[in-house]
Structure formats: structure tokens, C-alpha cells
């Protein structure tokens, strides 16, 4: 999947700027999330690189980064620093299966892919309630929210 990512959830009014009077808010408008899993962003301009890596930082799954020297790294981005230029902007990540922290300059990145499973996708109150009723209909007792098994 390439091009612009799709919206995952549509809230009534996605938060896009300062809220004029947060104290008067009755309902939190929420954020419209995008379906990023499988997305391969175009990195044709500096702005596209910055935007894609900001989304990669927010992504709750592994991404694959191909460097300009041809090597490929898959891992979880836990930090980013956006500097004046791509050379002094960096993402930091844990490579898959490693405790080592890697730091990669934006300027060294040739390609990016949201390759890992988005662990946040599909999480909703409705999904939990649906699961609850399915379990209850099956006769299950003591139904609770269980932690998902690690990959």
C-alpha cells in the first residue's frame, strides 16, 4: 500500500488545532487515526520524510527502514528528534529481537515501510463489548479484559 494512508476511525471533530475553551468541553472530540499498517510512504521531499517519520514514531508496531547504503533495519521506533536539517534529525529504535538502541539520521533513510502489525488497530469499546457478549453467549464465566499474548 502506498500513497496517503486511510483514516482508521472517524471522530466527530478530529483535533487539529488549539481548543478554544477546553474547560467547557462536554465531549472530547478525539483524534482521527490512520490505517498505517502496510503503508509505504513516498519520501520524495524533506517534508514527506519528516511527516512519515513522525507517523512512524507514533506507530504501535515495527517499521522497516532501508538505508541509503542498502542495508535494511526492522524495529520499533521509540524516539525521534526533528532538527533544522535532515542530517541533524534522527529516529531512535530498537531493532527487532535486540536490546540495542540504534540512532539513524533522517538523511540516511532511503525507504520506510510500516511492515509490522499495528497493535493498536481495532481496539475499541465496541470490540470489547462484542467479545464480551460472544463469550457470554458461549457460557463463559468471569469474563474480563485479558492481556494479549506477546508475539
Amino acid at each position: 500500500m502506498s500513497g496517503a494512508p486511510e483514516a482508521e476511525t472517524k471522530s466527530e471533530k478530529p483535533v487539529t488545532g488549539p481548543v478554544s475553551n477546553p474547560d467547557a468541553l462536554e465531549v472530547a472530540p478525539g483524534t482521527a487515526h490512520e490505517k498505517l499498517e502496510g503503508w509505504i510512504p513516498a519520501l520524495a521531499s524533506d517534508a514527506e520524510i519528516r511527516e512519515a517519520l513522525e507517523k512512524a514514531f507514533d506507530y504501535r508496531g515495527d517499521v522497516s527502514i532501508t538505508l541509503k547504503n542498502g542495508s535494511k533495519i526492522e524495529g520499533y521506533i521509540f524516539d525521534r528528534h526533528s532538527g533544522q536539517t535532515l542530517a541533524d534529525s534522527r529516529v531512535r529504535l530498537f531493532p527487532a529481537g535486540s536490546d540495542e538502541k540504534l540512532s539513524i539520521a533522517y538523511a540516511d533513510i532511503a525507504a520506510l515501510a510500516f511492515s509490522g502489525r499495528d497493535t493498536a488497530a481495532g481496539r475499541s469499546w465496541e470490540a470489547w463489548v462484542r467479545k464480551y457478549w460472544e463469550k457470554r453467549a458461549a457460557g463463559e464465566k468471569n469474563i474480563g479484559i485479558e492481556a494479549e499474548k506477546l508475539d
Partner: protein
Amino acid sequence: MLSPGYSYDKAPDQKHFLGRARTRRLFRAILSNRKPDWRFNMSPLFLEFLMGKRHYTCSPWGRPTYNIVGWQKPCYLLQDGYADTFQELIETTEWHEYGTESGNPKCANCMVHSGYEASAVNYTFSSFKGFLETVKATLFQGYPDESARKLLDETARPVHAHNPLVQINKEETELEETRA
């Protein structure tokens, strides 16, 4: 411990968080007319903030968090990156960009303890007046309030019109605010 949730950016479910106004009503309904044996291991001034009796701004530096990734930039819900050292955290974080009053849309609806209880505690120990008010709030925590009691009898309304909450236990008739 008590703290309201809020629609932080990374929460997968964005449809069920209360706005600040409704959050204050919820906590006023819950925390007014308290039983004498209720004990909260929290700043009593933060509880008054939740009830809408006080106004605080966020103290994003108030609850530094360290984990295997490093020192977490504000806040633990936003997950806005990490610093390798405490000094780097203090020096490189743009502290003024956090908190509802900052205008940061990611903080717009927040009343979470990590930023606002720290402000209440800071107020307590910043002046004699703050300390006395904390003593008063500790000793006199009944908060009799008939209108707050009536809030508990109000008919439940869905948070979002297009997405009414689902009542799992149909026998109960509690307010939707009390299920937040």
C-alpha cells in the same frame, strides 16, 4: 487512587472519553457528600480540582518517569520521546508545550494526575496559605452538596450521539459519567 482518563492521542479508542466539563460533574457527583471513612491516597487539593473547585495548570515536570528506554518526555500518556539522562530530559524538553493551557491539541482535554496533582502538591508547599488550605481539605472532606447528590439521579445520556454506550449489566441504572 483517582484520576480521569482523557482522549490522549495514542489511545486506540477515541470515542468514549469525557470532556473536561463532564469530567468535573462526574467527580463532583462522586466526591461530594463523602462518607467519613473514605480515604484517598492523593492530594486533597487535586480532588478539589477534579470537582471543579480549583484551577491548576499542568506541571509536566512533576512526575518524571524512567524505564528501559530512558527518561520519558512528557507525559507518560503522550509518549513524546525519551532522553538518555535526567539532565538531557530537563534541558531539551520544551516544557511550555505541554498542558491544556499550552494550546497543544494533544493536551486539550487533560486533567490527569501526572500533571495536575503535581501542581496541587506544589501549591500546598509553595505558601503558608496553600498548606492551610490543604489541612482544611484534609480535615473537612464531607463536601455536602445537594445539587451534586441530584446529579447521581440524573438520567444517563450517551457521550456521543452516534455511539451510545452499551449497558452490559441491564439491571444497573447508573449515570454514564459514573462509568467513565
